[in-house]
């Protein structure tokens, strides 16, 4: 199945846990420290530097881009570390998360509540996945180095639906 970002409820509702999908469009990288900061911004009542509505966050801190390449190795990192931050971002309109491994029951409930989706990317296949990234632009938190937020444009990025909008998990 092919899907395009930004995601809307109609697209999301079609996705079932275990489905293999090819995702195209813009996604944003963010991992531990970027999540902490994004949530601090939300808690302080300020506006985020980019709109999360319908967007997809990829739990990824790529290795450096070799000369002549768009991006370095860029596989997913362990999603569970982001669990405590996810509900806040979902409440701001985030619709998709990409990572590896399981999620907490709270995140699962939040995914259902906000009609969102959690995808699994091929774990430990960063070199291969770099082939699907067509553009990369640093948009926030440069000081975080590999944990900065990048706006990526991907084409046919291979994913598996981990938790669907009905709260069903592939690991059940």
């Amino acid at each position, binding site marked *: 199945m092919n899907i395009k970002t930004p995601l809307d409820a109609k697209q999301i509702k079609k996705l079932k846990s275990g489905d293999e999908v090819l995702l195209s469009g813009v996604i944003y990288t963010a991992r531990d420290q970027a999540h902490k900061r994004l949530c601090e911004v939300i808690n302080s009542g300020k506006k985020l530097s980019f709109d999360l509505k319908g967007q997809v966050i990829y739990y990824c801190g*790529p290795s450096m881009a070799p*000369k002549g390449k768009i991006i370095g190795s860029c596989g997913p990192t362990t999603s569970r570390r982001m669990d405590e931050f996810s509900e806040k971002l979902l409440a701001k309109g985030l619709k998709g998360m990409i990572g590896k*491994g399981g999620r907490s029951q709270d995140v699962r409930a939040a995914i259902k509540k906000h009609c969102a989706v959690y995808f699994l990317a091929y774990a430990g296949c960063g*070199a291969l996945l770099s082939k699907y990234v067509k553009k990369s632009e640093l948009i926030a938190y440069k000081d975080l180095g*590999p944990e900065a937020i990048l706006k990526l444009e991907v084409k046919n990025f291979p994913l598996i639906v981990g938790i669907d909008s009905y709260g069903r998990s592939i690991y059940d």
Partner: protein
Amino acid sequence: MREIPADKIRVAVSNLCAKANFSLRKDVLQQLRLAYKKETNKKAKKFLAAVIANAFVAEKEKIAICQDTGLPIVFLEIGQDVRIVRGDLKQAINKGIEDGYRKAYLRNSIVLDPLARGVSKFGPAIIHLDLVKGKKIKITIFPKGFGCENKSQLKMFKPTVSIEEIKKFIVEAVRSAGADACPPYIVGVGIGGTADYSGLLAKKALLKPVAGIKIRKLESELLKMINRLNIGPMGLGGKVTCLGVNIETAPTHIAGLPVSVNISCHALRSATTEL
């Protein structure tokens, strides 16, 4: 005394960084191929094909196997008839790490202060020095990813514990890692020594060839038990949760029995050279 200039060590370390991160270990690749043949879960099999393809892309295009290029751990065996000249050994190693990581476009994943965090750097490496016979230096670099390092476990057993309880602890450590740490895993186990030393043994166990010809009985029993967990490649379920279990043991105290488990993701990377 044989003299080895510190700079030679720096260059060797630098080259090993690239080698370890671009070229998946042959023993690991071999086990992945066997896993691909064995696996019957269709999605898991497709994933294993991607893992093998990833290794080829990394090697061919000189791009890191995994974006988590690890916390660099350096094991050094220094012959007692060697004298390191024209420079400081540890500085040479850490400069080698920085050169190597920078040149190979690897990731700067190290924060100098574990609490304040701050800007991440390429090093320093964790360095383990061992003095051995002879006049050579053997250098191994082991970039350990932290997705799997986070799943490490230690238990101080009673000396009267049954082997079944030890096995259960090891299998449970893998069960609790679940899908999170990039299965299929390679499981390193350290038994004996002290709390800290068993951890080092578990890590060193990962440096031994995976599923070598002479698998010990305990290792093969554990491998079978772990593969019955049905975690499977990428946690998708299936026959292959683990590619191999390596155990290192050491003498310990009459009052105790430390057991450490150090799990590696399927991208188990290390490279060795001798000067």
